[in-house]
């Protein structure tokens, strides 16, 4: 604490930034003044490069100082090139409530150089096309890990070449043999793949390759953090700048060591300002396949999936997966989206009347709770089905429908009030409200208090279109 290190950004105040700015209030950055700009910088809402005067020669020193002040606790390492290049790490904090996590955990799907060519193509395309729409976000997979299982440089080279031809997803080249790694790099020399991995025996050759092909590299030391940071230190001394750490991922009883290693590294980086721990972390849930034996594929995918999810929570910046089934990947991708949202985002949306499409006096009227996730789910179902409807958002203090009814946050009184306040009575000539199926318990009370006729709608808003066809008549 005697010396300020690059630990969490909370320790920075706008004044710290302001002091180093040109202080001329030129507004070239789009902000009203330098202080406003400094505040945005501290909140990571804007990049210092958007201050043109700061980029001038005379401000070189201040710029360098600012860069250093703003350096994240975990270095950001970029893998791949072009639109789909992936940033790993760049974390500012350890705990999610301290500040928004940056750079969601990248998820890689593997192929091997012994898979039939068609299978490689299928798996790559499957990874490329993986897409799930989730409240306004598209969830995707990010990388392809090409593993050498053949120990044959030519085969590996051909496989890397094939993959680089069919996808722009960044690659992870996996082999501990430097000669084979070089063959792979030669097949895609400008693609900036992540090289896996430098260990205690091959570090020198691997470091040379990383320098020659200017690609990031993983340091690997299974379950041995002293060796791991020593490899990282050695690579740095060698001139390699972009390093990812793999402390090892272990199944079963090894899960304890796995989580401990990830947690210790992240704590040393964010709280201790340790440069060697302050590097992106790689997790390998596909170790679940190592002792597959006679276990059914689905069960191995299940194990792989839950390990992946635990590592999303415990600080992994990149994950290598083998199972590529939708059911097994979906929970982890949704969890990743959840964990990486801004923790300051409110739980509730503003209550009131929302209009979808171009409703008229005969259009259906729904209500839902003001819990953000409930609202967005219903809204997205009305939107994507292009329905013309009114939706009354009832103040439930951020409770969902079922918990709101159970916890008396969603009451008939509140619904009746919301109907009255919304002004809907002047917009439609019918007096029928479709209520969430999960609020059916209070349907009678709503009718009594509001004077509106209640129709109990589906329990899930995905069934609204079907419901309207079958049950709606103004």
């Amino acid at each position, binding site marked *: 604490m005697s010396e300020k290190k690059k630990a969490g950004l909370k320790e920075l105040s706008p004044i710290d930034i302001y002091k180093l700015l040109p202080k001329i209030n030129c507004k070239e950055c789009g902000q009203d003044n330098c202080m406003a700009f400094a505040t945005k910088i501290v909140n990571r809402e804007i990049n210092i490069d958007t201050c043109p005067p700061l980029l001038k020669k005379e401000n070189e020193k201040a710029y360098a100082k600012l860069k250093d002040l703003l350096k994240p606790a975990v270095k950001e390492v970029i893998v791949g090139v072009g639109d789909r290049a992936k940033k790993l790490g760049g974390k500012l904090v350890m705990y999610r409530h301290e500040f928004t996590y940056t750079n969601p955990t990248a998820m890689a799907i593997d192929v091997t150089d012994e898979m039939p060519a068609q299978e490689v193509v299928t798996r790559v395309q499957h990874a490329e096309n993986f897409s799930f729409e989730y409240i306004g976000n598209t969830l995707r997979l990010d990388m392809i890990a090409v593993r050498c299982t053949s120990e044959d440089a030519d085969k590996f080279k051909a496989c890397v070449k094939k993959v680089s031809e069919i996808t722009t997803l960044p690659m992870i080249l996996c082999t501990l043999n430097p000669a084979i790694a070089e063959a792979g790099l030669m097949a895609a020399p400008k693609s900036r793949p992540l090289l896996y991995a430098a260990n205690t025996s091959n570090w020198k050759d691997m470091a040379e390759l990383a320098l020659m092909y200017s690609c990031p590299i993983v340091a690997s030391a299974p379950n041995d953090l002293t060796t791991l940071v020593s490899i990282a230190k050695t690579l740095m001394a060698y001139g390699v700048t972009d390093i990812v750490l793999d402390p090892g991922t272990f199944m079963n009883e090894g899960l304890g060591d796995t989580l401990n290693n990830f947690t210790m590294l992240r704590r040393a980086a964010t709280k201790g300002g340790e440069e060697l721990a302050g590097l992106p972390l790689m997790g390998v849930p596909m170790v679940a396949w190592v002792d597959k034996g006679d276990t059914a594929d689905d069960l191995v995918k299940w194990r792989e999936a839950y390990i992946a999810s635990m590592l999303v929570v415990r600080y992994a910046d990149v994950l290598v997966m083998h199972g590529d089934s939708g059911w097994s990947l979906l929970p982890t991708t949704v969890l990743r989206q959840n964990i990486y949202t801004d923790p300051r985002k409110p739980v509730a949306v503003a209550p009131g009347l929302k209009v979808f499409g171009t409703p008229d006096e005969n259009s259906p009227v729904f209500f839902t709770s003001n819990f953000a996730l409930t609202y967005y789910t219903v809204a997205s179902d009305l939107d994507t089905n292009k329905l013309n409807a009114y939706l009354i958002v009832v103040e439930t203090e951020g409770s969902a429908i079922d918990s709101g009814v159970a916890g*008396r946050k969603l009451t008939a009184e509140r619904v009746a009030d919301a109907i009255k306040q919304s002004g809907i009575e002047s917009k439609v000539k019918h007096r029928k409200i479709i209520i969430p199926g999960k609020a059916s318990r209070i349907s009678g009370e709503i009718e009594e208090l509001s004077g509106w006729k209640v129709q109990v709608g589906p329990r899930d808003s995905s069934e609204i279109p079907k419901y309207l066809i079958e049950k709606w008549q103004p």
Partner: protein
Amino acid sequence: MSQLLQGDDKKKTDEGLKLSDDLLEALAKFQQIELQDFEMDVKDLEIIFEPGMAGQIMPKLKLPAAITGGKPTSMLQVPFIPPVETYPNKITEVKLGGTKSDGGTRGRTLTIGGEVSPAFYTFERPMPHKPVITLDVFDMEVPLSKAVKMHVKEVVGDPAAWAKLAVEKFDADMVTVHLISIDPLLKDATPKEAVKTVEKVLQAVDVPLVIGGCGDPVKDADVFQAICEAFPNERFLISSITRDMDVERCAKYVKKNGHAALSFTPMDLNLARELNRRLYDFLDREDIVMDLTTAALGYGLDYAFTNMERARIGGLMGDMELAHPMSSGTTNAWAAREAWLKMSAEWEPRELRGPLWEVTTALTLLLAGVDLFMMMHPAAVKTLKDVTNYLTSGKKAESSKYANWVTVKA
């Protein structure tokens, strides 16, 4: 499926607690922090300081003098010092279930809480108790997803048989008897009928029980009273006491009859503190478990996770009002449509997706510090048990075995 069944955050440390330079030096030597005379203002506790801050005084890793210019020719050796911390406070232990010697009839008791480190920071110190799983049993028919229903359809409507199945087949540590039928808007069953249901479950299984109400603050208070008085010293967990109930009345009969209370609040730590403070007038700390609300994966799990993680860290750092074991209604995971909905072929089968949704929700909250899981699907229960067993085994990883994943021919 059957195979699956096998403080103000700007406050700095130097304000929150006074560490003299001497202490810092001493810490630098021992990499440990012993916080005596720890004081903090918890009036408006955001997390005032974070565990691990003391790690800032870890010695800087220095480059050995051997190489100063050029590329190294042999590996440089630097130590990694585990960033081990000590926390000023301990999470309260709560005992559930009363055996014969307690005046109850349960075969054994279970203790939760007692943590002195964040969840599964076993590099610091072991977890004092394994998290406990209680399975949901409903006293009447309720809408269940297909993936769950297939495992319990024989026993729906018979809470005693359901409880037996949960314990004997699904290995539940505890059973939650959800008295849905008492809801005035459903069957409006009487307190007497509810007592009968609980009695049947008590006879069917000998594990500790959680008693769940219907959510009506008045009816629940009446039913809970009847149950607490009918079965003194069974040490039930009464789920739950909420802010809109007659807290004094409920807390008094819980205490008088030797039970424990689940203090439930809707995802707001200040409300949780406030309700706990009200309970302290009538209950001991050791009688209170808290439920900070569980939202499903994809539907607010992020809020639940962060809320619980903050509560646990706050509790360890000295916020006594949050230093209680935490319970999670993990069954809420099934409120996510992705858990039960038939989706397009690429996301099927939902029979696997659903329980994986529940276990993902559970594991996320396990890592936030949850001590008691209220769950539904047997496969999710099995996995959560396996994982907690692994994490508390104290065994070292078979690192060489898994290190060869690169060449494995999967």
